[in-house]
């Protein structure tokens, strides 16, 4: 499965379009991480726990999108976009979407 955030896959041609595929995940923060982040919040700097949490979540959203594309019979996803929204306090939705295509 090839994915790209451009309208085509470099060096390939698109032979068939399957439509929009999406993947999402909603994650809440874990209390232990929140306490560490609370301390980090005084001196500033990177919140490593949150960075990892969001990276893992984004990967999961992308994997779900890929899974959907695969089930349609596509072999690539083009024009992938990411979106993040905080739906409630302490929880965030990570969303990935793109167009499933077949390339040669």
């Amino acid at each position, binding site marked *: 499965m090839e994915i790209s955030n451009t*309208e085509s896959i470099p060096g390939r041609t698109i032979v068939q379009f399957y439509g929009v595929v999406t993947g999402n995940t909603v994650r809440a923060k874990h209390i232990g991480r929140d306490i560490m982040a609370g301390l980090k919040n005084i001196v500033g700097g990177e919140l490593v726990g949150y*960075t990892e949490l969001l*990276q893992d979540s984004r990967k999961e959203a992308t994997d779900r999108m890929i899974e959907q594309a695969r089930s349609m019979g596509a072999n690539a996803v083009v024009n992938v976009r990411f979106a*993040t929204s905080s739906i409630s306090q*302490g929880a965030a939705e990570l969303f990935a979407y793109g167009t499933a295509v077949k390339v040669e």
Partner: protein
Amino acid sequence: MESGFLQMLELILNFGLPLLLLMVAYFIGAWIERRHLRSIRNREGDNVQFPVVTFDTMPDDWIASSSTLVSGSVVISLDYFKRVIAGLRSLVGGRIKTYEPLLDRARREAMLRMIERARLDGYDAIFNVRLETSRLANSRGDGKGIAGVEMLAFGTAVKFASRFARTS
């Protein structure tokens, strides 16, 4: 004598602690920022030869053999001192100088992580780079919880068909 001591203690607890916190935040925060900037500058120097562009199509002289989506992200928080300064600043309006380097650092860090990821996997260049910023909500309703900003950089990394395909 006894009540005088208690009054002193109360004074220290009421004003001394926030002041101490402010000073600790200022010194450690400034140290973390300097260290981070130094690391960013070094790594940017290492990656200066690596082509990263925001064009949505590849430049004509790039001949790609394979491609993938790469991304880099970082979540940063604002230190206590900066938040207090920004709070004061928002009373009179204007430019909040304490926040500007913070966001800049985060964005450059996200870009660097994306580039390092691509280089590690053996890609030769990245195009269609996009940068996104999202604010993480406070975990408490009163605004005192954790506030952070996530920076995400992503783009399409390509491997060149031959090492000399790109004429620079």
